């Protein structure tokens, strides 16, 4: 895991503030440092771990799924961000990437799979179709997956470039990391990646 430990810090924990933990003290490699002590909350430590080990579920529906595969294959290689373990079983995954258009026939299946995922779970809506049915505003499609499942990150594009999806993933990681990990979670305001 190559995430620098300085990411543990909130913006308010800047080293200039008296009493704040200095990032140098939290050098990678663990809890060595000058004092030999790292201070953080369990919440943050769990958040850091969760954010950097996302297991997405392979939920390819249509064209966007091809770009999702491109994201995980050579060149774009999503494993750089710790999210390459694509699982086909909902029970082993915590992120559902809805890649593609969702038809009314598929909608109950999607909900069922979402319900089978263990908490905590997140949903990334990939592409115009998943977010709002895109160019197909008609009888056959669900006009946005947010009518079926709560969405955390919207990635626009038809199809979004793999880079855009990775950007969405990083935004989601930030969101996971700074969320409350125990008890009631913060209200999840969805994030939209700027095209």
């Amino acid at each position: 895991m190559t995430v620098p430990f300085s990411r543990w810090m909130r913006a308010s924990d800047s080293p200039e503030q008296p009493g704040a933990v200095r990032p140098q003290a939290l050098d990678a490699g663990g809890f060595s440092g000058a004092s030999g002590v790292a201070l953080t909350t369990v919440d943050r430590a769990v958040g850091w771990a969760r954010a950097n080990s996302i297991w997405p579920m392979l939920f390819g529906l249509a064209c966007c799924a091809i770009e999702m595969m491109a994201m995980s294959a050579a060149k774009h290689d999503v494993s750089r961000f710790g999210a390459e373990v694509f699982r086909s079983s909902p029970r082993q995954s915590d992120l559902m990437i809805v890649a593609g258009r969702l038809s009314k026939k598929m909608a109950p299946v999607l909900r069922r799979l979402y319900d089978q995922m263990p908490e905590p779970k997140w949903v990334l809506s990939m592409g115009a179709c998943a977010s709002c049915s895109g160019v197909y505003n008609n009888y056959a499609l669900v006009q946005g997956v947010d009518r079926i499942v709560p969405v955390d990150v919207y990635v626009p594009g038809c199809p979004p470039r793999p880079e855009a999806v990775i950007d969405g993933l990083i935004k989601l990681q930030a969101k996971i990391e700074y969320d409350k990990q125990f008890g009631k979670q913060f209200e999840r305001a969805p994030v939209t990646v700027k095209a």
Partner: protein
Amino acid sequence: MVQQPPSEGATQGDDETPPPPPTDIDLVIERFPGSFVPSWRYADQMPTVRVLPEHIREAISWLRHECQTRYDMLVDVGGSHWPDRDEPFEVTYILHSMTTNARIRVKCAVAAHGDELPVIPSIALIWAAANWPEREIYDMFGVEFTDHPDLRRILTPNDWEGHPLRKDFPLGEEPVEFYRSASAGA
């Protein structure tokens, strides 16, 4: 609809057949009474013949097995709905011959009586390729195929109501709501 298509009257159309030697179209017209060449623009120059629904199975079977040009590949079966015509539901079969690369289009049109579904004999038993396309036409246009081995909906859910590609089925567009973004000000 802006313009009415020319009506496909049963009486006209015979004068459009090309001169001899007799084409497969001529032979079909000869063999199956009531068939004719519709007076309609076929921009792809594919020879076209329309046969009566009661003859469709024999006509397809004849074209496949007995006719000189063996049409041995069923390329496509598609439906269409022309609400302004007398026989609004049209099924189009496109056949291809591997030996001569010739293609022929056979059409068949039926009317619906009241609320009942229009009925056409199925060719799925004599040509397995027609199985799913016929199910699709049943699903999309509500044309019933008699003697079809497995006539169920294929694309829409089983409890779907209506036939989406009929002209009286609404597109089902939902109005798009535009929000003013927060950065653009009130």
